């Protein structure tokens, strides 16, 4: 289930968004949050959505997760409707807030989705031990969320999103509330974890370096109405090559500049790796 990687092309994309609009009804009339969105995410691919506040990047993620439904257009996850994919638990999800249940200890929090889907006690315990090791929190299995720092809580939330070995991870600014140091460490860990699990990732962020460091492709969005302005491919090598040194690398800075210029609406100087849609 988790051995699909970007190198093996698969006919069915992880996420396929075609001509999606999202219009919200509010008290003061309608607001177009997303307009004519087309996006394909291949299995095993890491795609970041970046843009200023109000560009609809979180809305797009919520549509993929079937937490909201598109007004028009079609949206499939591994060839299924978003609703069916949610019911089949094709994805794991993490939010900006860790969203841990304060009355459950760390391992019980990680086991929550397994418990809901009828996994046996022994299997649950084995899986949560495995995931705790993966996120480096084995010593905290019996701690309660309020005893953990923000970064540790977020790692628990990521472990929880991985609990059912999903082929797709949806992450909505999961590191948004963390300090810069913790944030960089978490990014490095996320690169390692996604490489180990081979899951595709849709990652919402408003940090340019974060998007560049993590992604295979960066989707740059513009607000009012939310549109995809450009999609740029980042070629910074495999997960093993993305170490802390990469942050100092010339290629890294180049990609950061490209994304920044796209965000500010200028034509990027280096045309390299840009797809226009």
């Amino acid at each position, binding site marked *: 289930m988790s051995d699909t990687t970007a190198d093996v092309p698969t006919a069915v994309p992880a996420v396929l968004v075609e001509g999606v609009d999202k219009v*919200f*009804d*509010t008290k003061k009339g309608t607001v177009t949050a997303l307009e004519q969105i087309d996006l394909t995410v291949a299995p095993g691919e890491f795609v970041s959505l970046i843009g200023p506040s109000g560009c609809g990047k979180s809305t797009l993620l919520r549509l993929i997760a079937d937490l*909201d439904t598109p007004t028009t257009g079609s949206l499939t996850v591994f060839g299924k409707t978003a609703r069916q994919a949610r019911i089949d638990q094709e994805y794991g999800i993490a939010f900006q807030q860790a969203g841990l249940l304060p009355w459950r200890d760390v391992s019980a929090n990680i086991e929550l989705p397994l418990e809901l889907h009828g996994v046996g006690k022994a299997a649950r315990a084995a899986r949560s031990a495995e995931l705790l090791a993966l996120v480096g929190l084995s010593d905290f299995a019996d701690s309660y969320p309020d005893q953990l720092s923000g970064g540790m809580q977020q790692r628990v939330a990521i472990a929880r999103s991985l609990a059912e070995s999903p082929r797709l991870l949806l992450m909505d600014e999961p590191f948004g509330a963390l300090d810069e140091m913790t944030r960089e460490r978490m990014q490095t860990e996320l690169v390692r974890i996604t490489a180990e699990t081979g899951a595709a990732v849709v990652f919402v962020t408003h940090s340019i370096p974060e998007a560049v460091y993590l992604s295979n492709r960066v989707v740059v969005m513009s607000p009012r109405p939310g549109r995809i302005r450009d999609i740029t491919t980042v070629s910074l090598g495999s997960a093993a090559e993305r170490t802390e040194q990469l942050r100092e690398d010339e290629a890294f800075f180049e990609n950061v500049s490209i994304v920044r210029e796209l965000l500010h609406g200028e034509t990027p100087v280096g045309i390299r790796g840009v797809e226009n849609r």
Partner: protein
Amino acid sequence: MTASPARLPRRRGNPVAGRVLLGAAGVVLLVVIWELYKALGPASGVVIGDLTVLPRTTDIAMPHVWDMIATLFEPASGGRKGDPVWLVVAQAAAFTLGVAAVGWIVGVVVGMLLAVLMQRFRTAESAVLPWIILSQTVPLIAIAPLVRRWGSQISVGDFSWENWMSVAVIASYLAFFPVSIGALRGLNSPDANHVELFRSYGAGWWRTLVTLRLPASVPYLLPALRLAAANAVIGTVVAEVSIGLKGGIGRMILEYAQQASSDPARTWAPIFGAIAVGLVAAGFIALLGVLLRRYRRGEVPA
């Protein structure tokens, strides 16, 4: 009401009217259940062992709802001749409402003063707060006859203590508690940011209280005032019974209950009166909430 706009189901028509209609339907449903059980249930009730689980269904135990309503328009036995029951009940309800209002005002003033005192001095909070909480486990209503006796000792000049004042004192004793707790929480509710901002302006304690803490406490205070109003009404009705104050709803409930064997439906008339008093009191607080809506912008709907 705070659901994300996407999940909010689209409402048709007037939501307030819909809620009122549904609430009224609930009352009708209750009446239907009452009459259905009366029609179908056994006359001696459902008894398991020695315990009556469901009530008797005789006309004395459970009069018809329409009889309860009809009796409202019959002439009352007491009071002026020819006055229908509803008018007598309404007069008693107005009397009870007046006493409850006095008790409520006294309770609110005392509660606010205590809250301000506790907010100002932390030692006062730790010394007084446990006793305020304990005070509510003391059934002052139980010693209502003794309260009346205290009052009868007071007589200064032309002023003499009257029974209704004892009732109001008991009402205020029940009313001050939610106010003091709610107001304390409200006065302590401003963020540290705001308090520090006021300190940086060199604002003194009094200015901070008036311009920051009191306005900030409104969302906490309103539910407390509502509870206090309900408590004041309850306290008044019960104290009327135990002190033996005539003229109010409480006494009327007891009097009509004693005539229950001759006219069981009439027992309900003063109970409807008590409900009306409670609803009027709650309506008054709702009005207060509308007047203070400026201070409730940040309020999280409960």
